[in-house]
């Protein structure tokens, strides 16, 4: 049986893992390779490394972090942040990533999705969408959540899938960093609109939140960062709780 995935996200600033609350107030959390391996040992089904500041410059630092993280990591590894063109993606794959996540650049030019999918396969392309409730609908924001686009998240997810995206990483900006639960309504709307897997992000605080986003939000995977880094919730403990609640997860692993 296909299991629901628990994905640990490492938000990177320079060569350090950090995690903010609502896209601000960064706190230091450690070395990416060490964090990734610890999460994998604890049962993380995948690791995502997001370069949250390097929408410019600093690419060498990121690639070094990708290389050192990939060396001894044997679960799927996604890298996002600052990938603007095919060659940026190629460099990240070359450094050892299995998938790339693209956000702003894909909104600007959806052919980037088909271009990367054509060369590396759809399974390697995750389209990240930052969505926020605006006047009763879900609007897409870019540039780290700073710039509104006037586009609806559901329509954009459909278009990204049609362009060859392999998965959607859907972040609720309203819930991000709050630990108040995923936005199940948003996740369900997108999950029902596309046939590709949807990864829910933003708001994880407890095992109950994961159960809800899998059951009510119909998410295929859920991603969290802050709760895993500071020991608020250990992934092994989380998976045991999900398993006990009859949620299909990779446990024991």
């Amino acid at each position, binding site marked *: 049986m*296909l*299991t629901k995935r628990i994905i640990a996200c490492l938000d990177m600033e320079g060569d350090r893992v950090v995690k903010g609350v609502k896209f601000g107030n960064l706190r230091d959390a450690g070395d990416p390779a060490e964090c990734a391996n610890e999460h994998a040992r604890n049962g993380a*089904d995948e690791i995502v490394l997001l370069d949250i500041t390097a929408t410019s410059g600093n690419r060498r630092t990121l690639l070094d972090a990708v290389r050192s993280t*990939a060396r001894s990591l044997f679960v*799927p590894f996604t890298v996002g942040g600052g990938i603007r063109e095919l060659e940026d993606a190629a460099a990240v794959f070359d450094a050892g990533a299995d998938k790339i996540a693209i956000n702003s650049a894909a909104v600007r030019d959806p052919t980037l999705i088909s271009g990367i999918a054509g060369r590396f*396969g759809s399974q390697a392309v995750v389209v990240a969408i930052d969505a926020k409730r605006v006047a009763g609908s879900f609007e897409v924001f870019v540039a780290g959540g700073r710039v509104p686009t006037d586009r609806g998240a559901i329509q954009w997810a459909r278009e990204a899938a049609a362009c060859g995206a*392999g998965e959607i990483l859907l972040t609720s900006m309203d819930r991000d960093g709050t630990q108040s639960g995923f936005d199940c309504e948003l996740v369900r709307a997108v999950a029902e609109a596309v046939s*590709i*897997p949807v990864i829910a992000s933003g708001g994880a605080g407890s095992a109950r939140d994961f159960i809800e986003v899998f059951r009510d939000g119909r998410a295929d995977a859920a991603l969290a960062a802050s709760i895993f880094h500071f020991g608020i919730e250990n992934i092994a403990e989380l998976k045991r709780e999900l398993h006990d609640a009859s949620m299909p997860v990779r446990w024991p*692993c």
Partner: protein
Amino acid sequence: MIAVVDYGAGNLNSVKKAFDYLGAEVVVTDQPEIVAAAEKIVLPGVGHFSSLQALNRTGLREALLQSAGDDKPFLGICLGMQWLFDGSEECVEIAGAGIFSGKCRRFPTSVKSPHVGWNSLVVQKGSRLLRDIAQDSFVYYTHSFYAPLVAETTAASEHGLQFAGAVERRNIFGVQFHPEKSGDVGLSILKNFCEV
């Protein structure tokens, strides 16, 4: 020496890295003569079945068929396993190796496709590749087309229907999942391949 065959289909780093980690001597190559000289062969690959066309163009197809016929241990991963079958609905113009019979088909629309994530294996007894792999072990898949269950199926998984997770005949092995991305279970499988 293990030859990991590079025919331009995706990223071979992770396969090489896993063998490096296990201490195996491994080379990534697109040269038929290096494939012919290798002790073991790994045919990886992700993406579209049409990318296998490159095997026909480069002379690699003959080298691979020859090696498989010579009883050299041969492991096809993902698209590389699908190549061992007759062909795929994904690209009917390209013939597979026909070592296992049947065609790869697209998952039914009743389930999410691509099939991405960790799924459990129903393991058959007696597989050399899956030696000591526990029943219901989880492995990582990412694919939209699946190979049918055949007599040589050594592990099955379920996603809307039952499909071949692993196949094995003598020296020829195929896995639809990615052992290089399947944690300790995957590394054990690759270690078994190193030791057959």
